[in-house]
């Protein structure tokens, strides 16, 4: 069957990525011939994928819609089953064709543009990996398979933001983008888990069919999870900042990831969820609101951008925001058309970004006067509405503090209780703390008494420890450690509040 060949579509670029990696990583090939080999290999793989897709589309046009393909079960445990299935409806096939065409053109562009770059082969391997990931996303017959593509594309994006790994800014931004996207992953996993719980599997067909059958709450949670994932991937508020930081890689990778393909993955996911979304009106409303807000945000911030790539990315964010708005309003077809055409246009625009200056030499039309005069608004736009600083202050830093506390709790309580060896205490620490004992100084009568008592108590303690042996010593030390931790935790107001709450709860 022709439709069975669909599995090869994402596998070809994946294979190309693998081969290039194997070819380039160990031997470090040099020279123009090696470059040609890599570029041709990559182009050939995507050409094959394209040809298959074209054949499938032609057959769909002639023989009517194609049925989904299932290659069997990849994994099954009890009620949970993960199938290797692909969906071949109009949406997925056209989207895949779009990915193949834009991807092919970008590869072709890069073959020349990246000539003699030290990272040439690395770039091509990652780009092929990314294309395979995108094809997985659009062709996957179920959410788990899509999740694999989802993660691979995130990885590829991370690798190419940090393409110039000798520049600290590039690597820092790569990490930032990667971490932000993990929040989306959490949403995706939530969606997956709930979908399994209520529907038994995550085939898009099952989801579509089962949408009406399960509780509204379950639908809501599933959709919510997927929507969070979609928003993170498509850089909707409040996730937007990562994408503006992602433009550190070579121009063609910026074009394909953030201008053209990956940013639309979230929109595509929402299109897939159409049947579910229909049962979650609140989430639809949320989508519309966030889409609109993001569109306005992109427009507003875009006005102050003074470099081409940033100006283009905020334009892109605006349009993707509008797509979410269409989805929120129920206009799925409109969103799909918008997506496809927008991707094509941005691919061209990002690839031609270096000539922006020669296409538009004149100064930009200034903003309307009423807006232009507002100092505070201008500052807000220039600083991108402080979204990043705000999330840093409200999420990142508290999370870091919490993590540090958890760690110290782990070190000092959990590992001791569990009996795992704690962090080595350096001998100097003990030497330093021993010194303290001689330093008890008091004033007045009470002081004198204290001074007199202290060494004696110390002697008692010493004796106790020396005669008591290792057991007592350990006990004391552990006790001291716990007390220290408890004291330190109690210093933090949030734990105090927690304790009060618990106490209240217990009292009630």
């Amino acid at each position, binding site marked *: 069957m022709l439709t069975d060949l669909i599995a090869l579509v994402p596998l070809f670029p994946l294979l190309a990525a693998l081969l290039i990696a194997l070819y380039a990583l160990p031997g470090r090939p040099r020279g123009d011939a090696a470059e040609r080999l890599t570029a041709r290999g990559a182009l050939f793989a995507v050409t094959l994928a394209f040809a298959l897709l074209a054949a499938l589309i032609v057959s769909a046009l002639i023989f009517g819609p194609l049925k989904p393909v299932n290659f069997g079960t990849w994994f099954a445990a009890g009620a949970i089953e993960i199938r290797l299935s692909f969906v071949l409806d109009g949406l997925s096939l056209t989207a895949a064709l779009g990915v193949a065409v834009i991807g092919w053109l970008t590869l072709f562009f890069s073959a020349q543009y990246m000539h003699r770059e030290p990272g040439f082969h690395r770039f091509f391997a990652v780009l092929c990996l990314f294309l395979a990931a995108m094809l997985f996303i659009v062709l996957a017959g179920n959410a788990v398979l899509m999740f694999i593509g989802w993660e691979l594309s995130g990885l590829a994006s991370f690798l190419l933001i940090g393409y110039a790994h000798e520049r600290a800014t590039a690597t820092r931004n790569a990490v930032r983008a990667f971490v932000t996207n993990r929040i989306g992953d959490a949403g995706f996993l939530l969606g997956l888990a709930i979908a399994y719980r209520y529907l038994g599997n995550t085939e898009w067909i099952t989801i579509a069919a089962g949408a009406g059958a399960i509780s509204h709450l379950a639908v809501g949670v599933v959709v919510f999870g997927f929507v969070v994932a979609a928003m993170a991937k498509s850089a909707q508020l409040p996730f937007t900042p990562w994408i503006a930081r992602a433009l550190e890689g070579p121009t063609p990778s910026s074009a394909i990831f953030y201008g053209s393909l990956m940013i639309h993955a979230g929109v595509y996911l929402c299109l897939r969820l159409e049947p579910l979304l229909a049962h979650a009106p609140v989430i639809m409303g949320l989508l519309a609101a966030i889409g609109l807000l993001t569109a306005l945000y992109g427009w507003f911030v875009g006005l102050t951008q003074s470099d*081409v790539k940033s100006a283009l990315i905020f334009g892109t964010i605006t349009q993707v925001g509008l797509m979410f708005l269409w989805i929120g309003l129920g206009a799925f077809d409109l969103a799909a058309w918008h997506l496809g055409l927008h991707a094509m246009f941005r691919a061209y625009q990002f690839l031609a970004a270096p000539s922006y200056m020669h296409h538009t030499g004149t100064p930009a039309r*200034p903003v309307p006067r009423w807006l232009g005069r507002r100092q505070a608004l201008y500052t807000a736009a220039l600083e991108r509405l402080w979204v990043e600083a705000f999330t840093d202050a409200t999420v990142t830093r508290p999370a870091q503090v919490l993590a540090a506390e958890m760690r110290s709790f782990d070190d000092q309580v959990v590992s001791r209780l569990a009996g795992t060896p704690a962090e080595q205490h350096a001998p100097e620490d003990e030497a330093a703390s021993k010194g303290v004992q001689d330093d008890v100084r008091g004033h007045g009568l009470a002081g004198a008494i204290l001074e007199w008592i202290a060494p004696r108590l110390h002697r008692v303690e010493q004796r106790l420890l020396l005669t008591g042996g290792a057991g007592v010593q350990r006990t004391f030390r552990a006790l001291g450690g716990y007390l220290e931790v408890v004291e330190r935790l109690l210093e933090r107001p949030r734990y105090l509040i927690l304790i009060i709450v618990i106490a209240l709860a217990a009292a009630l």
Partner: protein
Amino acid sequence: MSHAADNVTDPREILRRIVATLEHVLPAQASIRDFVHHNTLHGFQHLPFPEALAGARRLTGASAWLPEARFRDFFHAGRILEEDLQTSLSAVSMLAADEVIVDQPAFTLRRRDVYRTALLHPLRPVTAATLAWQVTEHEALTHFQADVSREMQQLLRERTRRQGAANVHATIEDLWRACCESIGVSPELSDDSISGPAPPDTGHDEAGALWQTRLIRKEAMRLLDALTARVGDPWTLRDLLMVLTGEDIFEQTREHLIRHVASHLDEGLAAWHNPARKRGFYTAWRASAGDENTWALSDLPEWRQHLERLPEDPLETIAQELQLLGVKPVRWAGYLQRLALELPGWSGMFLWRHQRPDYNGQRDVPVNMIDYLAVRLVLERIHAQGLCRRHWRMEASLPMLRWHFRRHPAELIVRHALFTTSLPEALHWQAQKRVMRALASAREENDRRWIATAQRILTHRAPVTDAASPRRSRHEHAWPLFRLAQHLGLTGSEIRSLDTAAINAIFECFDRLDPDTAGNVWLCAYEGNYRDQIFATLKANHGRVEWPTQIRPRAQLVFCMDDREEGMRRHVEEVAPDIQTLGAAGFFGVAMNWRGLDDLSSAALCPVVVTPAHAISEVPAPGKELSQQLHQRRLDWRRRLRELAHRTSHRGLLGATATTVLGAPLALLVLMGRLLAPRSTGHLVRKLLMTFDPCVSTRVAFKAVDAATPATPEHPRAGFTDAEQAERVRGLLRTMGLTSRFAPLVVLLGHGSSSENNPHLAAYDCGACSGRHGGPNARVFAAMANRPEIRVRLAEQGLSIPYDTWFIGAEHNTGDDSILWYDEDLVPEEARARATELKMILARAGRAHAQERCRRFATASPRLSPERAVRHVAGRVHDLSQARPELGHVTNACAIIGRRDVTRGAFFDRRAFLVSYDPMQDPEGDILENILLAVGPVGAGISLEYYFSTVNNERLGCSTKVMHNITGFLGVQEGTSSDLRTGLPQQMIEIHEAMRLLIVIEADTGVISRLIERQPSLRELIGNGWVQVAAKDPRSSRIDVFSPEHGWQNWQKEIEAPPVVARSADWFTRHREALPPALLEQGRPGEHANVD
């Protein structure tokens, strides 16, 4: 630059002077649309070349020599010969190459021998660990070093065999022992060579502890003084805090600063700028900063009070902030300089605009360097404050830091060790824990823990401080000596026979040959090799070709002096030997503000140092006003569409949606076309344009309507008066020595380049026209020279041009080697046929030239026919993905000023600027003076920019194009928040051979000497060795070289004459690399053209 503070007490005056000195250290690159090649280290031009490069390295840390390994490759590839190296060593007097350091009956050793070995083989000291590795991995102490030549190995074997050494092992081992003994170290490698001797036992008793505490205090005070002394030069507070906390406050300020600076300098990319922009950067920033929420969100203390306390005047702000930071006024200059150098690109652009208040259309945006420095300083203090509060709960200022660390010496030692050196892991964790704990605790802790850690650190470091004494060591001294001996073929007993003075002298040789001196020696040798080839060619070519006096050339073609035109001229002469070619600076003496028919504003077409006093515009030809109106309407349409596609599509909401959605299919088509079939797409687009919007025939309005108004740079007058026109025509013709034997056709060819997707487009255009196309200058010149009135005036001045001579202006596209002809409809009837024939000749030469150019393109097949080659280059300029549309001035290496007879018939591989000049018509050197004043800076600017961008592309160039992001229409960034990158991209310099421009002048040495003495700018350029100068005697083949130290020296090397080949193609076909010069049989002047 602390001299700025000398005997001036007014802080404002001090600051003003400081800003003036910044010009010496910051890049002075113009906005990228007006890219003009200039000396990257222009601020050091007052120094001799090697000193300047060493100075730049000291200041910025950027090496400006090619890596020595590259030079060694050149040596092994024969691009640098032994004698080149020897000559070069002799030329540096400081090296005293001929001094004998060992004079024994058995052998003599000159400094030269040591230098040579050190240049050819790295003799640098190694670390103890490297030595140990060498010994175990390569058995270095019993085997020859891998890079010792076979002959030397044999020689050394022979000699030691005679002395009784059994085998190679014994020879080498004995040599190693001898080397170690001669510097007084033990030859045995024990384990301590890696880890150092065991730390001294400091004991745990009272006395020991006291001693330790004292040691810590002493060490800390020494360190504190050393660290704080650096603040101002070469450090700022940022660097000090980085050493103490490991945190970089600049990283926190950078994005904020760049956003504001980019928005302030933006030339129209953004739609929205700071409403207070017109009141200067400082005021605008302050207006914005009040609304800033980042600092509040990131827990920066006191930022609001800080802002409120800022004075209105940026000068006062700088003074106040510096005082609050505790920087002494004598250090202000250094401090601000360092601050500016943190973002050299942006600072440089700010300064560049600061110095040009009238800069193109941005007059209402004041740009003042003081503003920039003030903002930078305020940001530094706000963030430093945050950091100091967090770590020490105190103000950010030098005195406070000093006060703190005087009380907590151990803390200083721990912090410094943790953040500047690599400590063993356990120690590292311990130190880090100290710092974390200090951060977490809210009160001042006692020092006990710090002291304990500091003690461990000091104990750990003990052997290191010990090694700092001048004692010699195996890895730093014996090893280089050991390697040197092998390369020189010295035996162990010979080494033992050296006395201390000789050993010291050898080590002194190593010291003298520091990286900068070594770089200089290598560079001179490299240049010398190429120079000899050029001289040999010129000598061999002398008198070989001479234009026969009785023959009138078929045509005279005046090209730009550009090195890229050397090839074109050669091919024209090969195709049609009866054509004479000439070279002149590509603005052809017509400095003007030009406004083409479709231009929105006028632009200066002349070298940057000139400010034009005349404005010339292109107007529709008489009778074409109607079609002009149509054209204008269509043009407006096209502009609107373009604006829609490129700008509206990313701005606005639904409008952008409509544009992107409607434009998408077209965009995809264009993308495919521009990538898959760039040439056909380019042609198709042009054809479509022509159909939609046919060309309007135009004229240049170059005649002054109102001759009475004076022409000044401030108020350029429209058009030239008759007198001015005659003066310009005469000027150029005289400069080139074209005063008689005019051909029926004289064509002036300006040049420019076209390409897609190339921010550095202007860098490929004509340097003599401020990085623009030179065609209009050629056109205006031709129009002036064709006027009978002007001819009459010229005849009155003794320059008679025959009535049948017709001038034509044209433009050579160096990208695809096509030629655009101007005002063809004006060519008189009788000259038409000749003009048509000439066009064919030039088209054919263009094809041959394209073929020659293709040999350097990796993507072009090495065996392209001329026809296919021209298709290839045409494809390149239309290709959206092409990062190397052409190669620009790459490989430029020399300039030859003189008659064409000197260079005609020789192949210079497109590496020579050719300037026409007839010394016979200029006995006093007045013409030469003007030529040198124009050509010197232009040629040197191009050559030096290529040089520096090549030798250190990461620091002095702008790195690879693939990451570039256009910013504010004024430059490129890497990513979205990097420094502005100046210099040339990687793609432009890959095949460049980094050497200084060799200017060969056909003139008497006396004349040239006089000019160098008279003109300060030439004295600086030539006297300081930024270019090399040689003189070719006009009457004989004698060549003299000018040396800044020794004056003129006759060049008398016996060098093989260059090969003679039939045509250029025979020489370059199938060669991809740079080629040495050759002589050509074809192209003897006067023969008839062979036009198919």
